[in-house]
């Protein structure tokens, strides 16, 4: 009975400790599990792979450090793939901190491409103004999308570093949202993917794929598949995407370059611990109820 009472009234500090360990240990020891890409992940990967060289892709970083562990792996994977496909990348942000998240992705990509050149001798072009441009953050949420739908320069007279847009070669090819081949949005809330679908991709008639936190994903399913081509909802699909990237581009197969797959170990174990607690909670609930009825 004493054991049952302990389990029934488990101290919340024990729960916190177990959750802490279940997250920390898999990260410390890099425990990883196999990933089996789902059809939607394969579909998005296929779409990106089919992009012709020089395709114009707008990538909007609409999240902040709170969601970085969940969203940065998919952002990094997409940026790698776009660079490998020789796409022209246009970066912007509807969140103030999104600009810094974009910078993280750009810096990581530059390191990856330098590693690749050193290891294989193959140089992937990634020059500012020619292969990519960073427009930075603008406040106004869907208002920003409304304006760039017809005219980028009206909303962005300069890029993030203050350089006039008219002097950037890449911007001569994309005057409005309608000139793009694909929109990629990584978002953790509002403004985010929903706004990009409603005010950008749909009116412009441009395909959009998105990445969101797992919590936000159920809210975005109503747009799939007609208005939203595909969605990576949370860390799991991001890890699956990394698996596909590693299979297609071996230089990205190293586990240390796949933060999503490393973090999935922690998520899997934490999910198991939470499920164990739910089961224990329900067992004690049913035992208590039976006892009450028998009295």
């Amino acid at each position: 009975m004493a054991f049952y009472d302990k389990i029934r009234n488990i101290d919340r500090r024990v729960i916190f400790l177990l959750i802490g360990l279940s997250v920390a240990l898999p990260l410390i020891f890099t425990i990883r599990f196999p990933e089996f890409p789902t059809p939607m992940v394969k579909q998005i990967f296929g779409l990106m792979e089919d992009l012709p060289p020089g395709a114009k892709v707008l990538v909007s970083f609409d999240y902040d450090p709170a969601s970085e562990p969940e969203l940065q792996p998919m952002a990094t994977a997409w940026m790698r793939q776009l660079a490998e496909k020789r796409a022209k990348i246009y970066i912007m942000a509807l969140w103030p901190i999104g600009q810094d998240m974009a910078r993280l992705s750009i810096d990581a990509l530059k390191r990856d491409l330098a590693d690749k050149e050193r290891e294989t001798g193959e140089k992937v072009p990634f020059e500012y103004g020619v292969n990519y441009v960073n427009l930075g953050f603008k406040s106004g949420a869907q208002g920003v999308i409304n304006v760039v739908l017809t005219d980028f320069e009206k909303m962005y007279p300069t890029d993030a570093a203050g350089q006039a847009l008219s002097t950037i070669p890449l911007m001569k090819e994309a005057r409005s949202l309608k000139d793009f081949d694909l929109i990629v949005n990584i978002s953790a809330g509002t403004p985010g993917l929903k706004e990009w679908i409603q005010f950008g991709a749909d009116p412009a008639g441009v395909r959009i794929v998105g990445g969101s936190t797992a919590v936000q994903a159920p809210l975005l399913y109503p747009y799939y598949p007609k208005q939203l081509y595909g969605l990576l909802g949370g860390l799991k699909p991001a890890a699956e995407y990394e698996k596909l990237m590693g299979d297609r581009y071996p230089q990205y197969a190293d586990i240390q370059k796949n933060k999503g797959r490393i973090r999935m170990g922690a998520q899997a174990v934490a999910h198991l611990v939470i499920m164990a607690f739910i089961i224990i909670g329900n067992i004690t609930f049913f035992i208590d109820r039976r006892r009450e009825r028998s009295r």
Partner: protein
Amino acid sequence: MFVKRTLPLWITFVVGTVIILSKLSPKTTGLGEDFTIYFDIIAVFAFILGGGNLVKIHADKLSKMGAGWGYSAVCLIGFFATLFIGLFEIGHPKGWSTDPTASGSAFNFIYDYVFKPLAATMFALLAFYVASASYRAFRAKNLEATVLLVAAFVILLGRTFIGSFVSFWTEPGTGFGIPELAEWIMDYPNRAGQRAIMIGIALGIVSTSLKIILGIDRGYLGSGQE
């Protein structure tokens, strides 16, 4: 009275009507975009007001040495230090008049080594509370709660490798594997419910917006007493 009530009502009516028309006629599209850019200008003043309000509240608390005044001191020091470093581009490798957030700047250092870890830590705490709350509240008390519990289990399992692992007995594509069941839950019951909610919200927004534009709902103007 004119400045506080009538003028804002007219501004709301004109801006709201033009923005609606900009979606219906190409002739008014440019005007709608101009109004959107004006929003940016207004937002700048909102940032100043927000900052001013933050300083006022915490300075009051600090001067009165109220409960938690230490937190207010930290908040104000952080606010002014970040503002000063960002405005004057302290430690910027390229000097004045460049992107204050560029790599190597002191502002960027604050972002990387103060803001980012703090924001991530705050969000990470959620995992602990979710686990604790799940243990205490997620009970199969009735039929609805049981359905919710089963759906949650399938989604939790489907979002890890364990879902695929325990589905070894089923052929992929048959729809009976845990990951496929999780996908089905998201695709059908979830999507149907979300769409119903979304349509309801959209109708509500249309009705509220019309009431504001036409001046029927004037709650946003305040009581007018102050």
